[in-house]
């Protein structure tokens, strides 16, 4: 069964530092997403990415955030100058088409101290 792989599984960072969360989506998938979940609450949309550009981003996804697909396989989320409220589980997801479900990665737990 193809998987979405996320690294690291845990990241602890000091407030104000930059973090990069990495994801390897399923190879033949076309659509990529970042979501986050705070303490088992709702899964919040951050950004979607298709055809090598951002399709849509939420109000949460401000100038502090950026995404890249640097080499055709990795999909990264960068958070500049992290804040305490950025602490959450960050999930990467991908899907092969609009009529398909998402496959989520196992997530990166980010703790900002």
């Amino acid at each position, binding site marked *: 069964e193809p998987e979405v792989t996320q690294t690291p599984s845990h990241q602890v960072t000091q407030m104000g530092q930059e973090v990069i969360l990495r994801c390897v989506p399923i190879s033949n998938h076309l659509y990529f997403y970042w979501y986050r979940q705070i303490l088992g*609450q709702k899964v919040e949309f951050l950004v979607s990415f298709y055809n090598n550009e951002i399709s849509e981003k939420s109000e949460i996804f401000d100038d502090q955030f950026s995404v890249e697909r640097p080499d055709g396989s990795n999909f990264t989320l960068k958070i500049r100058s992290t804040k305490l409220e950025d602490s959450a589980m960050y999930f990467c997801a991908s899907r092969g088409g*609009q009529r398909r479900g*998402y496959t989520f990665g196992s997530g990166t737990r980010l703790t900002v101290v």
Partner: protein
Amino acid sequence: QQPVQSPQAVILREGEDAVINCSSSKALYSVHWYRQKHGEAPVFLMILLKGGEQKGHEKISASFNEKKQQSSLYLTASQLSYSGTYFCGTGGARAAGRDDKIIFGKGTRLHILP
């Protein structure tokens, strides 16, 4: 807009049935259902794309009423493994070739007792 799920939580005994509802205030193109176990990622159960469509997955099925902008997830003869939080996710209509993100509801916690 975030879809509304009900109930917020359900406790069942093994073998009992449950229905989880999901409704939206805006027109829907698709409804997704996912299950998340504690400390794990959400796992895709099924997607419904047309009004009146029903899909099944073992003893878990779902319906989609496009007119009412609602979907329901049916769990029959529940098993211990069904415990977890169920999320519906809704997507609006988009032009072909363009993607529309899924907005998830707050989830319904399901606990199955032996």
